[in-house]
């Protein structure tokens, strides 16, 4: 049977070019933030499946300063609990593993964003009696290691720098949620921990028991994958 050679070659060449172009496009496409779900094959052992799942690369998240905040609670004159907050929370989070195994944080808080809903009190909190914002405009937490605990919680070791003093602390972090939306992939964490502010050179009011030494801190973070 006679086949017209030119049209067949043209069609074949077109198909090859299209396939090559498609292949090139796939290789240039950015990797998706959500790691691909690895379905266990009938031949694959459970160990092999886990090995495949945990080998995925780290995901970088940028802290959304609009939806993140730091709260602190301290006792006033040995009686009531006084609450204050920081709005300027920025930084990055890095997660790795599927399901998530390790957590790395670099959180920076703008001390000038301290707020207590009282103008006079805010001035006092910004003064050298407390945060000394002119001298120390930022405080930070940089993680050094993390360990997965039960459920969605991690024990994160790191260095907290506040009032010019850096101290190692351990923070328990809970992942409050993760979602995919039109605004990107989002993840939420919450950490609750307590520090002794005198260890950071912030001693005002302790001697007179006017303001407690122990400060409970709650940091709520929402981050978007970059």
């Amino acid at each position, binding site marked *: 049977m006679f086949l017209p050679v030119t049209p067949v070659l043209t069609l074949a060449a077109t198909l090859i070019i299209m396939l090559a172009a498609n292949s090139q496009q796939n290789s240039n496409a950015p990797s998706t933030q959500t790691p691909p779900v690895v379905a266990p094959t009938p031949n694959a052992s459970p160990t092999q499946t886990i090995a495949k799942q945990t080998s995925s690369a780290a995901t970088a998240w940028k802290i959304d300063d609009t939806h993140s905040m730091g709260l602190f609670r301290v006792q*006033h004159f040995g009686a009531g609990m006084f609450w204050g907050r920081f709005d300027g929370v920025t930084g990055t989070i890095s997660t790795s593993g599927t399901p998530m195994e390790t957590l790395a944080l670099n959180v920076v808080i703008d001390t*000038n964003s301290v707020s207590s809903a*009282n103008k*006079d*009190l805010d*001035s*006092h*909190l*910004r*003064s*050298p*009696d407390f945060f*000394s*914002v*002119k*001298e120390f405009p930022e405080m930070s937490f940089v993680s050094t290691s993390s360990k997965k605990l039960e459920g969605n919680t991690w024990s994160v070791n790191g260095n907290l720098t506040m*009032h*010019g*003093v850096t101290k190692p602390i351990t923070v328990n972090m809970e992942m409050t949620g993760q979602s995919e939306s039109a605004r990107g992939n989002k993840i939420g964490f919450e950490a609750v921990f307590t520090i002794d502010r005198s260890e950071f*050179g912030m*001693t*005002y*009011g302790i*001697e*007179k028991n*006017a*303001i407690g030494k122990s400060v409970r801190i709650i940091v709520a973070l929402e981050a978007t994958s970059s």
Partner: protein
Amino acid sequence: MEMQILLFGIALPVIFGVAFSVWRVTRSREFGFGSFFGVAIASVLFISAISEDSLQNFTTLNRWLWFPCSILICGFITGIGDLFSRSFGARVFISCSSVILGVLFINIPGWENVTSRLLLGVATAVCSTLLFVVVRRRNCFSTIISLCFALIAPSVLAMLSGFAKLAIPIGAASCCLGFVSLVRLATQSNAPLNECVGFSGAVVIACIAALGAATGWSYDTSDIPVAAWLLASIAPLGLWLGELPTIHSRPTLSAWARILGCVILAASSIVITVFVLGSSAPQIVE
């Protein structure tokens, strides 16, 4: 706060006043009290300040403590200088050099630049020389009580800006002056020039006002205007009102003018601050 008020507002000034009274009664003045007055006031300020904040790591952490340290440096240099110098020119040289040296050490936010610190030092040296000249002319009850009122201004401004740790030491120095003025009033005499405030006292008081205001302004995050801090820094110079040509020849009128001059400058700075901040009264917020 109550303990600080009792200690630095009452206890230390009382001790200071008793020491002054004992000296006046015994009259054992081989050296003029003025030589030690500055050292004593500077020491009160320093003790009060370091009780508020740890001196440990103050070069990096509690940098505001450079302020009392500088005052102590000025106090000691001018105190020793007062003992060994008698001429006016020599004393001015000692005061200016000690003030500039002391200010050069101050490394607080906004004053990291050496040139700006040098300018601050020169301005403070000018204030201290002017104060020394006016104190030298009339070293009496009205001078001491005027200086007591003058130091209230930087103390109140620091308190209004939320910097209680700075307000308390300056307030303690002011209380000491107040107590000494009462002792002086109770033991009326025509004291010699080197008695009471004297050379070192004048330099230290000028430095407390000027550098205290500069420190308060540097750390201020409220909206206190610069003009208020400036008025507070020059409040001791209100003594010059009593030296106006038509007033200075009449002692009583001159005394009242001195008090009024300091009170006007101090009160102006406080009124401006209260007006701008919208506060009704100074308050300690804890």
